[in-house]
């Protein structure tokens, strides 16, 4: 799903995080926020749009998202007004949102004939089309879009590669067909289908889709030195904070930046695994199937599209939820901040009273940068010993399945799949009762959480580091 290559658009977003955080730190957020777009986008900065004014208008929408406001509902409000109203009183309505101004309304037609068409004699395209959608007009093949069924046979048949597959990157990335276009041909997300997996955010080359962030809210708490924040590190955090930055150092640095408590979500994962194993034993006894519940995007997809199967989803709370509940039961005044590579967790947190904020790794690193803390220059460490292998290996695909095998006494067959598209196919099989296993581990991102849309490093490397860390316990 992610390839973590850092594009200009990703850099711009991260620079924005740092600049906003600096304003929060100095206490000038409300006063300076309306000047920020002018300061960061000048006539001389690299420009991707028609003029700097459009660029700034888009930039201001991005700022709103980082402040934590839904863009569509707050389009008329000024940045100053929004910044002054923090901490936010309105609940976020959704996590993944299109920035209308930034969407470039890419072509909707999936197959297009380009100028490379030579109007050859063979006309392989016309012959290959099963619905007779291709005609030759004015010396060039032409696809009648009303007839086209988007099978792609013409593109394969053409000897000149003159027919282009041209799907919008966002809708290609969305395996649940949640993205369509509105009357302005701009991308529109069907919130009934969207599971907030974040693939479209990573896919859009214009950066027109964004997640509504908790960053500024966290920073307001942190920089006011309220000492009321607890970090929950996703099991996939190894290596995400920089090359050769150990878990112990990350722990130390997080406390140095002002977090009171640091807890591995892997600790919650151990509890989740144990509870899920119990549930599984029961299912095995009656030869029924259990679906994993720790990936919120997978869980949401089952609920959205396979209502009749939602009873099969494990009733066990997710590792994040368990960890947060544990922190709150011990120290109720703490606010919990989950840090991970995931957007779907942001959506899950909206419904979980124990999880106050969710950040991704880049947002957390921006917090370090704005606080002038460079992990590479820190030598101190503080051991992190919250969990063992059974919890830590949740970070990669197959890890949960492995933990359950160890925790379950009886023999059972299981299956592990990653990627929402593949999972969807599998769910059709389960619905038709054409499966032969008692447990399905579903992870929306390919490779599991280490391959999440906001992972900072190559997923193979991330998996290796997580494994080492899990085995070190």
């Amino acid at each position, binding site marked *: 799903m992610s390839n973590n290559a850092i594009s200009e658009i990703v850099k711009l977003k991260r620079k924005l995080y740092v600049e906003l955080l600096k304003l929060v730190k100095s206490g000038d957020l409300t006063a300076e926020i309306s000047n920020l777009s002018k300061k960061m986008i000048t006539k001389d900065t690299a420009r991707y749009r028609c003029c700097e004014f459009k660029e700034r208008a888009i930039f201001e929408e991005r700022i709103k998202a980082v402040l934590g406001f839904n863009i569509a509902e707050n389009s008329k409000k000024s940045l100053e007004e929004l910044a002054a109203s923090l901490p936010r009183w309105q609940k976020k309505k959704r996590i993944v949102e299109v920035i209308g101004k930034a969407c470039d309304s890419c072509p909707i037609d999936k197959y297009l004939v380009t100028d490379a068409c030579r109007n050859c004699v063979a006309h392989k395209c016309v012959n290959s089309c099963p619905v007779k959608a291709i005609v030759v007009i004015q010396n060039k093949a032409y696809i009648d879009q009303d007839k086209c069924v988007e099978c792609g046979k013409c593109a394969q048949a053409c000897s000149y590669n003159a027919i282009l597959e041209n799907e919008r990157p966002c809708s290609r990335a969305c395996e649940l067909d949640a993205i369509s276009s509105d009357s302005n041909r701009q991308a529109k997300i069907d919130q009934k289908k969207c599971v907030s997996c974040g693939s479209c955010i990573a896919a859009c080359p214009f950066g027109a889709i964004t997640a509504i962030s908790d960053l500024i809210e966290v920073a307001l708490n942190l920089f006011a030195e309220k000492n009321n924040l607890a970090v929950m590190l996703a099991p996939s955090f190894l290596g995400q*904070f920089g090359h*050769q930055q150990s878990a112990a150092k990350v722990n130390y640095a997080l406390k140095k930046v002002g977090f009171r408590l640091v807890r591995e979500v892997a600790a919650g994962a151990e509890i989740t695994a144990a509870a899920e194993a119990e549930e599984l034993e029961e299912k095995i006894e009656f030869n029924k199937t259990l679906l994993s519940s720790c990936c919120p995007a997978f869980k949401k997809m089952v609920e959205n599209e396979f209502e009749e199967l939602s009873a099969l989803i494990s009733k066990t709370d997710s590792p994040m939820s368990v960890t947060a509940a544990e922190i709150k039961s011990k120290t109720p005044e703490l606010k919990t901040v989950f840090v991970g590579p995931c957007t779907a967790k942001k959506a899950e947190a909206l419904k979980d009273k124990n999880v106050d904020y969710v950040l991704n790794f880049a947002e957390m*690193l921006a917090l370090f940068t704005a606080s002038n803390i460079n992990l590479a*220059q820190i030598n101190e460490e503080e051991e992190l010993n919250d969990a063992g292998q059974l919890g830590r290996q949740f970070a990669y695909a197959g890890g949960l399945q492995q933990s359950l095998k160890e925790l379950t006494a009886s023999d059972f067959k299981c299956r592990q799949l990653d990627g929402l598209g593949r999972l969807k196919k599998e769910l059709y099989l389960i619905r038709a009762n054409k499966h032969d296993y008692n447990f399905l581990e579903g992870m929306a991102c390919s490779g599991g959480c280490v391959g999440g849309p906001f992972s900072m*490093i190559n997923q193979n490397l991330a998996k290796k580091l997580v494994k080492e860390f899990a085995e070190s316990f």
Partner: protein
Amino acid sequence: MSKNILKICIGTPCHLMGAANLLESVEKFDCKLRQKIELKTSHCIDNCCDQAPVAEFNGKVYQNLNPEKLYKIIRENIK
């Protein structure tokens, strides 16, 4: 044979802007090129954190890099 020295900054600001991409790209260089380079990491080069990611090749500092830029710089300046 004198080695070419490539230092990539792995400080937090550089990591935020894609130092991991640079490190990964160096490992993907073809063998002949990779052999000529001695890869080191640095905690901070020149304090130019707002121009991240930063790397130093044979004593010269290059800012605002991406894997493609880095590859070109190395190709052009390799001994």
